[in-house]
């Protein structure tokens, strides 16, 4: 079935005119019709527009045009602007908002020939780890529909693992790409901060957010990264480094590469089956010729607290723009302040409100130094831990999440427990390094995907991808499909 293909398999067949972009798009639409009632990965999608793009791609393919993603259907998280399509960020506050322009990542994917379709479900404004905080309903894990798909990019992960698209885009502020990729059994990468433009991404925490791909294997992740990376004059935090052909680095040769294991990550609460998968991966890497080195990241235990100060502070400032003046469903008031308060009180869901309040508090007069400034200083220590470790190793191997997918509703009553489940992914964003989650096996009874994570040096995506690819190709986990 065409919808099950990887980008590299599909582009070969398309270029040889063995299959058409229209057939491929149709097979994704058929899969959505068949399974999305159970999964609810998509908030909406415009089938006619997608097929029209597919026909345009077929014309170019017939004319012999060569583009890296020509005719590949790619679905988009509902926080990234696609011109003339709805943009809701999983929230009801934006009402019937239609994007007036394309995000830079969308322009780049279109330049590469991709078919851009669908709005993928997410935790409201990317705040959450389970996609239960969406105003559009819960997304379900394709491996077990009583469980969460992870979050905040739960729709992006579920759509790829349920073969409703060939690849998707998500965003990662504290693990929102890597954790759902792990729990749904696909590949998700957070590029180094500054690698990918954030223009047209609705900001949650500007110093932590990055856009990244969800794919069916590591090679596809490399292909997507080459397509979306690069300097953008519209994002002053994007870095003017050249963009390598990341897929060219995937030669399977990891001999002599040094892989770090952080002793602070061997924490209580780590599921024994996840721990076993990590140990098996260590053995496999040794077999492949990599060297395992014990490292220390001494400030690990402070990462979650630091993150929930920095991220909420930035969010409280970024989300001030949703005030009912230039956009949003306006709730009238007798004066502007009443209008803002009512509009925001009505439009935002509970988790967003909680974080705006926490962020406002840590920035407020009298508490700024004690909370926000202190957290920024601890952030320096966390970043230093990683830079010190990377003097000894090429990448760091960790579980992506301490457990496999949990049940819907299991953690909604206790936000702190939900936050603590991000322990392995959060430091990466604070340190501004890159990270990738890939398949590392399954739990037994029930059978649920286990994700492994590699953390790479700043702009060290090539080595990180090479290591992930070598492991993936020496196992068969990535070939398994859920029964939906």
């Amino acid at each position, binding site marked *: 079935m065409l919808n099950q293909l990887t980008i590299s398999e599909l582009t070969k067949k398309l270029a040889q005119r063995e299959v058409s972009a229209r057939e491929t798009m149709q097979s994704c639409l058929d899969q959505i019709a068949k399974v999305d009632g159970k999964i609810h990965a998509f908030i909406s999608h415009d089938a006619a527009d997608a097929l029209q793009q597919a026909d345009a791609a077929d014309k170019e393919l017939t004319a012999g045009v060569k583009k890296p993603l020509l005719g590949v259907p790619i679905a988009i998280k509902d926080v990234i602007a696609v011109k003339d399509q709805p943009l809701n960020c999983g929230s009801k506050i934006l*009402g019937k908002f239609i994007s*007036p*322009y394309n995000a830079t990542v969308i322009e780049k994917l279109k330049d590469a020939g991709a078919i851009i379709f669908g709005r993928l479900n997410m935790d409201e404004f990317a705040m959450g780890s389970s996609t239960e905080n969406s105003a559009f309903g819960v997304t379900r894990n394709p491996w077990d529909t009583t469980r969460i798909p992870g979050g905040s990019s739960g729709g992006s992960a579920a759509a790829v693992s349920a073969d409703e698209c060939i690849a998707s885009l998500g965003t990662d502020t504290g693990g929102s790409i890597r954790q759902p990729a792990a729990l749904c059994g696909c590949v998700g990468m957070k590029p*180094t*901060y*500054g690698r990918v433009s954030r223009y047209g991404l609705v900001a949650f925490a500007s*110093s932590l957010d990055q856009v990244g791909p969800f794919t069916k294997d590591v090679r596809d992740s490399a292909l997507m990264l080459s397509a979306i990376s690069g300097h953008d*004059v519209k994002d002053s*935090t994007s*870095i003017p480094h050249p963009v390598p052909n990341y897929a060219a680095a995937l030669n399977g040769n990891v001999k002599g590469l040094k892989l770090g294991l952080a002793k602070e990550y061997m924490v209580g609460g780590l599921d024994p089956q996840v721990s076993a998968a990590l140990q098996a991966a260590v053995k496999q890497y040794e077999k492949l010729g990599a060297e395992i080195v014990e490292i220390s990241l001494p*400030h690990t235990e*402070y990462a979650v*607290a*630091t993150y*929930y*100060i920095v991220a909420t502070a930035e969010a*409280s400032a970024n989300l*001030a723009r949703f005030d009912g*003046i*230039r*956009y*949003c*469903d*306006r709730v*009238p*008031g007798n*004066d*502007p*302040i009443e209008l*803002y*308060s*009512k509009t*925001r*009180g*009505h439009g935002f869901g*509970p988790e967003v*409100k*909680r974080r705006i*309040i*926490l962020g*406002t*508090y840590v920035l407020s007069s009298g508490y700024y130094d*004690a*909370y926000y*400034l*202190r*957290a*920024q*200083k*601890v*952030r*320096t220590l966390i*970043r230093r831990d990683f830079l010190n470790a990377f003097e000894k190793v090429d990448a760091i191997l960790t579980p992506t999440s301490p457990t496999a997918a949990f049940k819907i509703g299991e953690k909604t009553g206790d*936000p*702190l427990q939900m936050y603590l489940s991000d322990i392995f992914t959060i430091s990466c964003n*604070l*340190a*501004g*390094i890159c990270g990738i989650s890939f398949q590392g096996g399954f739990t037994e009874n029930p059978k649920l995907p286990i994700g492994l994570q590699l953390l790479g040096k*700043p702009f060290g995506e090539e080595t990180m991808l090479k290591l992930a690819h070598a492991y993936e190709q020496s196992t068969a986990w990535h070939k398994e499909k859920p029964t939906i």
Partner: protein
Amino acid sequence: MANDFDVKYVAHLARLSLSAEEETQFGSQLTNILGYIEKLKQLDVSQIEPTAHAVPLVNVFRKDEVRPSLSNEEALRNAPAKANGLFLVPKIVE
């Protein structure tokens, strides 16, 4: 510090109206979260510089020249209220 957390006051600063139920719920949840955050006080950070951005770029300028931007119509497309090519807002001055 965590026990004097005044949800009502902070919600006012954030221009966020809350129901009485939300005030009570957020009050106890946020006291719990702030209690956890207290652990940062265990560290001596007196000699440490803060990190605002992990990849520090400074003075990113572009040329001061006119470039294409959204049209008036496009910019107003999602406005909840508009008139004469402008956003309509409630009266601000008496």
